[in-house]
């Protein structure tokens, strides 16, 4: 940052020797990122873009076939629509629920009481556990008869569903599981909550505002920048759901009646089961556009509700 601002100021002047030297050092220090970005992000993205117009099969074939992949996707591939539906279902429920969940949790954990740091640690812990071990654990928790969740439900005379076996309940089960690890976002909110100026609450209290009103008119507006950040990143993350379905369904096949066949899982199958990499690249382009549009809409809507003090 420092380099760019100095360079702007001196645009018309010739750089002194020292400034030139500093600029080179600056570039050198950011070079790991630049090189990494070019090799691992921009390069593959451009390659995918080109590949999406070909019948690339990873090893022996890459011929230009125009828009054929996209045409096939929209008109012939029924699983494309199924997987898009599954993913949209997941995103629409998962993003708001985790946002609300983590805000509420952060507010609860922002109390001044003895031992609060222990609770904070407990709620944060799931965020550092990840991957296959957690999914296997949840498969046990969600087991229809002996699983902890249905056992607890049965105490209240509720007959729990068959979760991962019933296509109606597979996606809700996954969303429930993801709620367990809201600790990561909670930590962000907690840090922001502690930066909300105390005098705002004090004056509101003097004016006789109830605690709900204080939350609604002070806390919430003050943390909207972080909510905004959280919603954008978690939307992008939610569209990329893959691992959960890959691990929790029988050999990554998409679960009962393809109810867990998410967009990326279908893409993966096309790429590495059918070796139809060109088609998979075309799918990734569509996903890229969807996420891009959503992020753009989010950015446009932001001024209406995000409050920058």
């Amino acid at each position, binding site marked *: 940052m420092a380099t760019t601002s100095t360079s702007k100021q001196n645009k018309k002047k010739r750089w002194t020797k020292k400034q030139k030297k500093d600029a080179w*050092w600056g570039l*050198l220090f950011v070079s*790991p990122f630049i090189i990494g970005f070019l090799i691992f992000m921009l390069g593959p993205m451009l390659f995918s873009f080109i590949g999406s117009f070909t019948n690339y*099969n*990873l*090893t*022996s*074939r890459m011929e230009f076939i125009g828009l054929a992949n996209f045409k*096939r996707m929209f008109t*012939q*591939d*029924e*699983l494309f629509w*199924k997987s898009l539906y599954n993913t949209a279902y997941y995103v629409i429920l998962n993003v708001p629920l985790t946002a609300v969940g983590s805000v509420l949790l952060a507010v609860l954990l922002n109390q001044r009481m003895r031992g609060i740091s222990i609770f904070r640690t407990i709620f944060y812990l799931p965020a550092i556990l990840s991957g296959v071990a957690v999914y296997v654990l949840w498969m046990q928790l969600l*087991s*229809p*008869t*002996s*699983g902890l969740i249905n056992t607890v439900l049965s105490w209240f005379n509720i007959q729990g569903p*068959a979760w991962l*076996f*019933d*296509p109606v309940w597979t996606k809700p089960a996954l969303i429930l599981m993801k709620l367990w690890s809201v600790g990561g976002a909670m930590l962000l909110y907690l840090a922001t909550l502690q930066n909300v100026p105390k005098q705002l609450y004090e004056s509101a209290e003097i004016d006789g505002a109830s605690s709900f009103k204080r939350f609604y008119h002070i806390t919430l507006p003050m943390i909207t920048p972080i909510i905004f950040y959280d919603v954008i990143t978690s939307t992008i993350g939610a569209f990329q759901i893959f691992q959960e379905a890959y691990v929790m369904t029988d050999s990554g*096949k*998409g679960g*009962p*009646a*393809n109810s867990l*066949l998410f967009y990326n899982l*279908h893409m993966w*199958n*096309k790429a*590495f*089961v*059918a*070796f*139809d990499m060109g088609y998979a690249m075309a799918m990734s382009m569509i996903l890229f556009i969807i996420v891009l549009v959503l992020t753009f809409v989010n950015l446009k809507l932001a001024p209406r509700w995000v409050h920058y003090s």
Partner: protein
Amino acid sequence: MVKRNKKWLSLGITASMALLLAACGNGGSTNKDNADGGSGDKVELEFWSFWGSGMRRDAVEDIIKDFNKSQDHIEVKYVYQPWGDIWTKSLASIAAGDPPDVIVQDINSVQQRADAKQATNLQEYLDKEDEDISSRFYPQLWDTVMYEDDAYALPFNTDTQVLFYNKDMFEEVGLDPENPPATWDELEEAAHKLDVKKGNNFERIGFYPLWNLGADVWALNADHGTSWFDKDGNVKINTPEKVEALDWVLKQQDYYGRDTINNHEAEFGSGVADPFISGLVGIRAQNINYYTNLLENAPDGFNYGVAPLPEKEEGSGHWSWGGGFVLEAPYGAEHPEESYEFMKYMTSPEVQEKFGLNSFDIMANEEANENLKEHPDLDDKGHMIYDMAHKNLEQTVITPIPLEAPDYTELVNGQLDEAMLGNKSAKEALDAAQKSVEDLVEQHK
């Protein structure tokens, strides 16, 4: 002082970065240099498999040691790759042009890889042989490695689906333990005799067809050994026989109830908690490899038998389904002739027998299985398994991935699930699947 420190620091960073980059760039090629020049004239082969522990790993390492000692031209180096990674890794290495020399691959996708130029054509080496190498193997296994009249792999091991049944339980309910069910009707009858019901709950389930076996196997069994595709690649999903098979499976599901089945299934454990060993089920249709499980976990005196899958009706045939693995030289492997040499060794009767003896795998080499069914180092149960496997392979169908519709399974399974959930009748579901898969074939034309 401060300035000098800075200088040294930056020099250090630059140097370490340069090293890092250099290391990244060279990582792949150092091995190869050793392979060519390191140990005289010897060719070093890298052999990848997913046998990482236990009996298979010991067996394969022993065999490689023997091979390395048997001649002084080739040195095989064994590399274990985890099951979940091995084929994606090899695909990446083939695409990058730096693959291993020999790899254990899935038998069902050989033609797919041959088509995509991921495997080395072995035909020229086979043609040089005096011996007809193809006659070593069961014919349906050999068919899987042929693509446009050339061979692209050598079959290594295989399997087949059979019935395991609890003989003590048979005796207990008055069934003849030496006379296992031979038709679907007999199977159903035996299953219901073996059921134990308390109130509305099943405490023991005689037999449920979809535990450890897919509806596709029952469909293939009913349709005289024709899978979802016939030999010429025509889609054969909604044939009357297959509709009847799915109806029969649905009937079994209705009898026990979907909840009962889901609940039992979720309880199934492995090891000693295995439902067949713990007595929750009386008969189980399963891969014959399940024998190793019984060997490890069943208590002494656990009395069971194996039988072929029953036929739909008398004369329709005890058709079964199998899979397996092959040895393949990835496309671009540097020493294909030596790779072939090693693969040939691995599929010879003696080596196949040795691997089978130690791992209890059903081998691709016919002679090896025939020797194993009377091998002095195996007990009666071992003989029974190899005898059964050898016989069953006569009516075992392998279903290679069709080139025109490599990812058809989701389409069919989705419809099968719809039928099992009661959303569609068997005929509706299979009609829909037939149409979807025909569309998919059309897309690939």
